[in-house]
């Protein structure tokens, strides 16, 4: 028991948690393999795949040409024929090149085949705003995947969640879009040494509260945590629901929290218009209308691409003080 406590205090980085998940699953199941640009010898742009090549060899860990559509489709074909590929697309922006394979192929096979085909593919990619990467490398495009039946969609915010969810994603028999956030890779958090899995579709209450439910995911969670500390100091007790997986969506946890707090703020990094937050708002509103004391508020990105200039970059997505302000508006119904 003592060792257990010791082990549970281990803190590692988000990228290392992902790395552990890959290593464990590849060791467990030799059908798992990984491909992407610069993921083998170089270990990936964000160092998530470091050491895999050495441990599992070039047949199961290899670099691809810049043929995103082709190699994603290859992942799907391999998945259809008994393998369990993990495909990495460097930036979620580049997934715009692979949507035919994801939307028209991977997402559809199970249904179109009357359940005879399965596509156990994990598509790892990375999104969000940060460090002046400008309009083509700073998008948050989860809403596009969220709308497509047949895909699962996971967006972890902590090392613990990242590891447990990636393991679950690899074991899932349906295609999983697994979106990491470029600013989270170096964040540290507790990750136990012993194996664990987090089932897809379970939100996590990152903090209990009674006055306001704040719903967030991925890169916005750390910002919400900061904001909530400030709110605490001002006497507003906010509950943080980190969705972790958007599909399946944990409606029950959301609705229960809303029924308790009667006020809701959804914080999303993606542009406000047509984001996942809108859908969650519509669900809350349909399923908990009578509990709502004020409208479900959404704080999202501005409806523009991301500017290069670093100071302007900050203006287009929610910052901690925006969250504080919006929280008060949600609670005081302004």
């Amino acid at each position, binding site marked *: 028991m003592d060792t257990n406590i010791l082990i549970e205090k281990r803190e590692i980085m988000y990228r290392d948690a992902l790395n552990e998940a890959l290593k464990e699953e590849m060791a467990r199941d030799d059908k798992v393999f990984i491909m992407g640009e610069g993921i083998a010898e170089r270990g990936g742009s964000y160092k998530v795949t470091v050491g895999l090549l050495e441990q599992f060899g070039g047949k*199961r860990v290899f670099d691809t040409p810049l043929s995103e559509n*082709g190699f994603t*489709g*290859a992942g799907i074909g391999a998945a259809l024929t008994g393998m369990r590929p993990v495909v990495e697309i460097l930036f979620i922006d580049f997934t715009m090149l692979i949507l035919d394979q994801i939307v028209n192929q991977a997402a559809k096979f199970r249904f179109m085949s009357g359940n005879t085909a399965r596509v156990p593919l994990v598509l790892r990619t990375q999104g969000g705003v940060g460090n002046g990467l400008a309009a083509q490398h700073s998008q948050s495009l989860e809403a596009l995947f969220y709308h497509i039946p047949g895909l699962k969609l996971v967006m972890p915010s902590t090392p613990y969640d990242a590891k447990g969810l990636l393991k679950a994603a690899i074991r899932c028999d349906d295609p999983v879009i697994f979106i990491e956030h470029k600013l989270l890779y170096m964040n540290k958090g507790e990750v136990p040494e012993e194996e664990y899995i987090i089932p897809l579709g379970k939100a996590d209450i990152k903090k209990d509260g009674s006055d306001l439910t704040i719903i967030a995911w991925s890169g916005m969670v750390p910002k919400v945590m900061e904001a909530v500390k400030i709110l605490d100091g001002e006497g507003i007790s906010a509950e943080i629901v980190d969705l972790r997986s958007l599909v399946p969506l944990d409606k029950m946890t959301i609705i229960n929290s809303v029924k308790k707090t009667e006020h809701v703020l959804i914080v999303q990094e993606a542009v406000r218009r047509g984001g996942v937050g809108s859908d969650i708002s519509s669900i809350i509103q349909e399923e908990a209308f009578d509990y709502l004391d004020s409208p479900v508020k959404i704080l999202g990105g501005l409806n523009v691409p991301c500017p290069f200039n670093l100071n302007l970059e900050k203006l287009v997505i929610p910052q901690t003080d925006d969250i504080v302000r919006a929280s008060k508006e949600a609670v005081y119904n302004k």
Partner: protein
Amino acid sequence: MKKNTRDFLVSLYTTMYKIRNFEEQAIKLYRDGYIRGYFHPYLGEEAIATGVCAAMDRKDYITSTHRGHGHCLAWGADLKIMFAELLGRENGFCKGLGGSMHIADYTKNNLGANGIVGSGAPLAVGAALGISIRKERQMVSSFVSDGSTCNGSFLESLNLASAWKLPLLFVIENNQYAVSTRIEDSTGEPELYKRGAGFGVESIRLDGNDVLEVYNTAKLYVKRCKNGEGPFLMECLTFRKSGHHVNDPGLYLPKEKVDHYKLHDPLLIGKKHLTELAGLSGKDILEIENMVMAEIKDAIDFAIKSPEMSEENFLKFVEEY
């Protein structure tokens, strides 16, 4: 000549005739309202699927196109289950949810038709990649259309297969048209096999209406794929014996080409093989054809009598999706 050669030629012709009669009967079913949606007949291209699939083992894999009935049949699909799928019945290959453009048999390594032109090719790369990772003695044939040779999905696949030295045979079914658009208007190089060299893929062009030529070439490439020498590309020159789909009269097809291919029909060529190489009589051939027709008639009766998925079953299906 050897007995097995005779049997083999008969089996090739039987398959081709099966595809021919299947499509003709299915078109009637379409006209009678039994089949709906898009239906792209494989008429006139029978020799390609037949020759290539005959050269493969059934533990190998195929990917098909939007014009996919021929590949399914040549791979050996049960006629009853095929018709059932085309008619949208619950006992079809895809429980009636897929239809003509998505017909597939994953249990038998047939990765199926595809409604998106070119998008089957990356899947084939993936199946071949899996083989290469598992180090198995299998290969994949990917049927692709001439139109798809102008599309990135196919072109990236050609390069990936080559970069990764995969056991994959690309089979271009060059029927010279994409709906009404001539291949000459779609590309600066209408000899499509020439694409291969630019990616380091050994490539060849051949008469896609001569089933023996197709078979012999495929046989060689299938073997070489399994020996780790892949990928390869074979361009099979052919021509549609119909419009693009059931509702297209194909008026844009030039008369001289139509006439030429009437005489250069894969079934006529197949018959010639049977008489000249295997010594069959006209009567022998008629017997084969009658047998196939009877089988197809049975299959149609079966399909027509088969039930559709009930609303209740469907909603259950949806729930777990």
